[in-house]
Structure formats: C-alpha cells, structure tokens
C-alpha cells in the first residue's frame, strides 16, 4: 500500500507539471497566432504572414493538447474523488454505510475504466494499420496514445481507492 501511494504521488507531480506545460503552450501558441495575424492585417508586415505559414502545425497541436490536458486533469480529479456526480445519498445513507458505498462505486469505476482501456487499445490498433498522419509527420496513433494512457491512469487511481476502501470496510467490521 505504501509503495502504491508513493507511486501515486510521483505520478500526480508529473501530471501537474505536464498540465502546466501543456496549458502554457496552448495559451502561448494561440496568442502568437492572433498576434501575427493582427500584425499582417493591420501592420501589413509580410514576414508575419510567412511566419504564420511556418507554424501551421500550431493549431492541430493545441487541439490535441486540449484532449491530453483534459485526461491529465481528470486523472488528478480521480485521485481526489471529486468527479462530477449526483450526490444525494451522502446525506441520506447512514454514516457507517459510506465506506461500503465507496467500495461498490470504486469497483464499478474500475470495471468501466478497464473496459475503456481495452476499447481504446482496439481503436489504436485499427488506426496503426491505416497509418494516417496528424501534422509534422506525426502518426495519428501517437496522438491517440492518451486514450489508453489516460484511462489506465484513471484505472490506477480507482484501484488505489478501491483498495483503501476494502481495508476500511474490513477494519470497520472487526471488533
């Protein structure tokens, strides 16, 4: 359990840094594009247009980063158990039932995440045989790696949570 937790913390830190880097890139690249276009249209600077042509990969990259960032954010959110949910039962159920409820929910989430990992690996296999390209010659499947990777992260988080709850439920029943 201790090892799992320290892996969890290390992964969280890495995810945090990636989020900062990706979001920073998204803002910077989009801003630069608007800035260059404004220079060309309103300042009539030829080189701004040329430079814009040079970074035509920026837009698809930024769109891809939105998806990657979203998965990293969702993974962090899973670690904190703060996903969007209908939360009426917390007040209605007796307090001692709550760990059992969490355990049941974790198991359900583990199943969904595991099935999604499998589904996205199937999708990537299919895409690899097509051999399509995204931009700058990057193969499309490389951009899609975030799907199995992201769902694996979610799976890992739900698994840790399920384990913690199991311990909790078992301890609760022992006198």
């Amino acid at each position, binding site marked *: 359990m201790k090892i799992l937790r320290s892996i969890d913390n290390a992964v969280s830190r890495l995810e*945090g840094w990636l*989020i*900062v880097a990706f*979001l*920073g890139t*998204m*803002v910077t690249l*989009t*801003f630069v*594009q*608007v800035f260059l276009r*404004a220079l060309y249209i309103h300042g009539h600077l030829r080189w701004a247009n040329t430079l814009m042509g040079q970074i035509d990969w920026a*837009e698809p990259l*930024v*769109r*891809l980063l*939105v*998806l990657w*960032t*979203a*998965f*990293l*954010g*969702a*993974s*962090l*959110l899973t670690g*904190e158990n*703060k*996903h*969007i*949910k*209908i*939360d*009426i*039962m*917390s007040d209605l159920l007796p307090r001692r039932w709550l760990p059992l*409820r969490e355990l*049941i*929910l974790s198991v*359900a*989430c583990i*199943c*969904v*995440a595991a*099935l*999604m990992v*499998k*589904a*996205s690996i*199937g*999708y990537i296999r*299919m895409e690899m045989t097509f051999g399509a390209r995204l931009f700058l010659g990057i193969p499309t499947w490389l*951009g*899609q790696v975030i*799907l199995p990777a992201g769902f694996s992260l979610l799976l890992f988080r739900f698994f840790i949570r399920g384990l913690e709850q199991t311990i909790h439920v078992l301890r609760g029943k022992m006198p």
Partner: protein
Amino acid sequence: MTAAVVLLIILLTLLGLPIFAGIMAAAMVGLHTNQVDVSAIAIEIFRLANAPVLLAIPLFTFAGYLLSEGGTSKRLVRFSRSLFGWIPGGLGVVALVSCAFFTAITGATGVTIIALGGLLFPALVSERYSENFSLGLMTTSGSLGLHFPPSLPIILYGFVSGVSIEKLFIAGVFPGAVMVGILCIFSVCMGKKWKLERPPFSFSEFMHALKGAAWELPIPFLIILAIYTGFSTATETAALTVVYVFTVKVLIFRELTLSGDVPRIMKESMKMVGGILIVLGAALGFTNYLVDAFIPMKILHFLEGLVNSKIGFLLILNFFLILVGCMMDIFSAILVVVPLIMPLAQKFGVDPTHLGIIFLANLGIGYNTPPVGLNLFIASSRFDRPIMQLYRSTLPFLALLLLTLLIITYWPPLSLFLPSLLK
C-alpha cells in the same frame, strides 16, 4: 439481462457513481446490444481533438480561476457599492449585480458564492437586511449571470448543439439582464418597506472605486468587442483573455506569484476542465448510440401523442429541465440532455438559439430548487446555516426567477432580437 444491467447503472449513478462512468457504461451496454464495437466510444472521445471550439473551455476556465483569486471580488463589490449603494435596497442590488458580473467573468464555473459570499452576506446582515432575505439573495446570486459571455455553459451548449457561440453570447444579454433586473426591483421594494438607511452617493468614492476596478470591469465588454468586430474568434478571444488577466493579476496588481500561485491555479482549473470534458467524451459516445437506436425519434413519437403545440412542448420542457437541474450539475445536464432535446425542439419549431437560452435559465433555476439544488448545499456550508432555512429563504427569489423563466420561454424575441441584428 440488458434491462438488469441498465437498472444497475441507474442505481449506481443515483448512489453517487461519477456521471462520466455511468454514461460510458450505458453507452457500452447500448453499443453492445446494437452489435457495434465498443471502441466507437474511443473514436468519439478522440473527435474532441478535432473540434476547434473546445479550446475556449480550458482557456476561459483558466482565466476565470485566475480572476477568482486575489482582490478582484473586493474591487468589483466596492465599485458597484459606490454606484448603487445609495438607492433603496441598494446593497441588495450591489450583491446581485456584482455576483452576476463575477459569474460572467469567471465563466460561470460555480465559484461565485464561495468568492463573494463571505464579503456580501455579513455586509447585508450588518445593514439590517433580514437574515433570510440575505441568505436567499446570496444563494440565488450563484446562478445569475450564466447568460453573459464568456459563460462556460453557453460554450458547451454551442458545442453540443452546433449553434455558433458568437450568436449565443449575444442572445443571452437581454434575458440575463431581465433576470438580474427583476431581482434588483425586489430588493429595492424590500429596502423601501424596511426603511433601511441609505448612505449618500459620494462622487470621490465612486472615482476611487472606478480607478481600482478599471482593469477588471471592461473584461466582458472587451470580449464582446473582440468577437463582434471580427478581430478574433471566440477561441482566440479566450487566449487573449488569459494573457490580459494574467498581465493584470500577476504584473499590475502583483496579487499572484508566478512560481507558486499560477501553476497551482493552472492545475486546479484543468481538474475542473478534465472533469467536464470526460463527461463530454462519454456523452458523445452515448449520443452515438442514441442516434443509432433512433431514441430521439421514439421520444418524439411518444411526445406527439401527448402534446401537439409549441406551448405545450415548452411547458413540458420547462418542468423536465428544472427536474434535471435540481439533480444534476449544469455541465452534465447540457451534455446529456441537449442531444436528446434538439431534434424534438426542431420538430416543434423552437429556435435552437432560443432553446439554449431557455436551457440555461432552467438549469440555473434548478440549482436553487429544493430538495437537492446544488446552490442550496454550497450556501448551506458556506454560511453555516441548516438546509431547511435555505429552502425557506430562497422561496421568494425562486418564485421571481420562475416568472422570468416564463417571460424568457414564451417571448422568444427577447433572446432572438440581438442575434437577428447580426446578420
């Protein structure tokens, strides 16, 4: 077998299963029974990387989170106090207007009650507004301003329905103003009835407050200006907003540190975005199944037997959406319900832009509706009052909001007048 699994998914979702997991499970079951490969969900999720509009969501959310920290809320309240404080019930008006404004600039991500409540609620009570009035006002304020740009729910609605965000932003201006306006009139009436003290208008205080808020006040207007002069698209405007807000908060006011606060806020805001987008991905997968299985058609068939007029349809829609709004958060509600309702609304001749405005108004009201409206719980924990007291105190406000809902729903020109000028 399938029915049992579906029942299990519904039960688990009511028990508190993350919405995205519930929708994904439902989509898997649906696709499986239709003998479609489950990787269809993965395909739908990856389609998110091909949608240019989507970038507006992380960017506006980040800008909103930056604004919700530091002194922005104080400067806004001080400004509106210097402007409206002198009229009867003035502080109530101040609270309503600043909450709506704050909700708008933070993109309606649900931070308003938390950011402004601690400032405005004690002020209201100390100026001898009744506690229940103040509580009700602060609670309902949390969902005012949903209609103003750059509200995140509007962007999501635009994405799911295919209506242009530019059009939706401008359509929301009048309906949003009517909602705020009617509650302001209520506050003025109560202020007169209670004969509350009124501080005189001070021009020098007004100028000071204006100077303090001069950087943040123009944000929604700059956003509208940039979009409608064609300077930048909605998405690009989001990036410009981030750069502007970053400059104001980090370089001009020096309220947020570059090494500590900014990365933390980046992470916090992207968690929120991740939570929304994973529901969006799941909902896309689910919609894929719904369309394949002709579910909207079937609902339409069923409805046609029940109602045959636009008015009847809108009435059912209003009821249904308030019910949804008090169970679900606004983001999942839009993502799950809009694809179902869109074809029906078209059949009954409801304009998709108008439908979006009705949606937001309804779901915003659902937030304040007992027993499970989200605002009630946020306010209950923020102000440390029992939930039953909040049910009672929001009731008059709820009644007024329902009145505006009727106006918004049954008087389409209110929403459609401004967009029609655009063409």
